[in-house]
């Protein structure tokens, strides 16, 4: 089952605490995730920790899904980092700032696993 979402990215304390520790599993666990509300989790038929493919017209990425009761239905939060940046809008609309929030996309269950940072960045060098 697919679920349409409005994607926002941003800082979290786990992401911040590992910002100088990016090759660690702690950073991976802090950032390769997508937080959604209970209704959206139910729509997807997934349990927390399952993998989900996030797709927008700018790209796609596989991350773990997590429950966040503070999210409105249809809002997906991905901590800032390489995984979030696979799906954000690179257009700055003439002010230098890319579209890190308010990116329309969809979530769907997947059997794929999230790539770790090194594997993810190696794709950028191809």
């Amino acid at each position, binding site marked *: 089952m697919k679920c349409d979402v*409005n994607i*926002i*990215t*941003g*800082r*979290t*304390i786990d992401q*911040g*605490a*590992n*910002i*100088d*520790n*990016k*090759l*660690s599993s702690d950073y991976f666990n802090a950032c390769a995730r997508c937080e959604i509300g209970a209704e959206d989790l139910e729509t997807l038929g997934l349990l927390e920790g399952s993998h989900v493919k996030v797709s927008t017209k*700018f*790209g796609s990425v596989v991350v773990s899904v997590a429950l*966040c*009761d*503070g*999210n*409105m239905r249809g*809002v997906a*939060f991905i901590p*800032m*980092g*390489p995984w979030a*940046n*696979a799906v*954000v*809008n*690179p*257009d*700055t*609309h*003439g*002010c*230098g*700032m*890319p*579209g*890190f*929030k*308010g990116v329309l996309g969809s979530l769907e269950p997947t059997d794929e696993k999230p790539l770790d*940072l*090194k594997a*993810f*960045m*190696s794709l*950028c*060098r191809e």
Partner: protein
Amino acid sequence: MEITDAICSFCGSLCDDLTVKVEDNKIVDVRRACRLGAGKMLGHERINSPMIRNEAGKLEEVSSDSAIDRASQILLHAKRPLLYGWASTSCEAQSKGILLGEILGAVVDSTASVCHGPTTLGVQEKGLPTASLGQIKNRADLIIFWGCNPIHAHPRHMSRYSGYLPGFFLDRGRQNRKFVTVDVRMTETAAISDEFLQIEQGSDYVVLSSLRAIINGKGDLVPDVVGGVSKEELMHLSDMMRSCRFGAFFFGMGLTQSKAKYKNIDCALSLTNDLNTRTKFVITPLRGHYNVTGFGQVCSWQTGFPAVDLSRGAPYYNPGEMSANDLLMRDEVDASLVVASDPAAHFPNASVRNLAKSPLIQIDPYANATTEIADVVIPTAIVGVETEGTAYRMDGLSLRLRKLVDSDYPSDEEILDKIIKKVSRNGDVC
């Protein structure tokens, strides 16, 4: 040995009350720091040695001189170099970076362009009615957190400046103050606030405009629901804003990165100006990296602008044209120097792919996503831990960061000095 009143070089709060315990030239304990600051001071894994990427695509260790030589050659041969980052280093290193940009005819941009760059644009339109964090601590009886979550991003901000401490005119601390959070999500900051307005994503501009209308006596024009918030809630918030004695409005990426971007800031600044016709109200951006504010200051006093294109022989500033992401998305950049930041982790993937296409030099204490695509890597000392330097707190107060332990790593400033000497021609002022 115990070092008191040490300054934390993590976020823009620059907390200056830490006690650091040093044994055998190693920091073994940090008191009063938050999780972010303590983690940095106690240390993470470092880059051991300068490195250059070999023909097989692997980074291999080289001497410092070799890395500086290669970096200098890359920059000398570039036609459109980008010098990016600067948020987590000293003002002294930033100053050297801008000088290097002048010699090379480079674009010099900071992490503000993906953070509070739109704030600068808004401030250039409307001015910044602000105050020091000390004034806010001592006077503010209403605190608005809009599109920000300081409990996660600036964990001690509320306990030091914006909430819990008693102030000179507010002797009961938190009991004297009201907190209001406006956000798309129910964050931890929202959970401890007295009021929370959960707005629809991207509706900040219309909600701010509605508050302005109500405060300016045009409330009859405001619809029953704006951005998912009822008119009654907006009337209540505007009453709180008008009736406070000293209001402080803090904002973050929820405003700068959402749909209207710098126009959100323009509107928030206008709201603050409107409120100042009725009471005292100030507004302050919650700046992220500890010296991103400093880069704006240094670049402005050296070139006239908070980010600058020096390729024309005279400083040029036009965000959206010469900002790092715009240059990368147009595939203009043919060499990059990244100092004290990690654009590979924090730029959109399409920009990162273009960043990786041309030679990339990294100067940083830590391995990160940018290291994975860098061609030359030069490790440096951590400012505020292993070397001293000046930094600007988020409210524009400059503070001198101290050296707490000795280090064999050179400072960013020393590395940049060596590169400047290599790329300078007769007549360059260095």
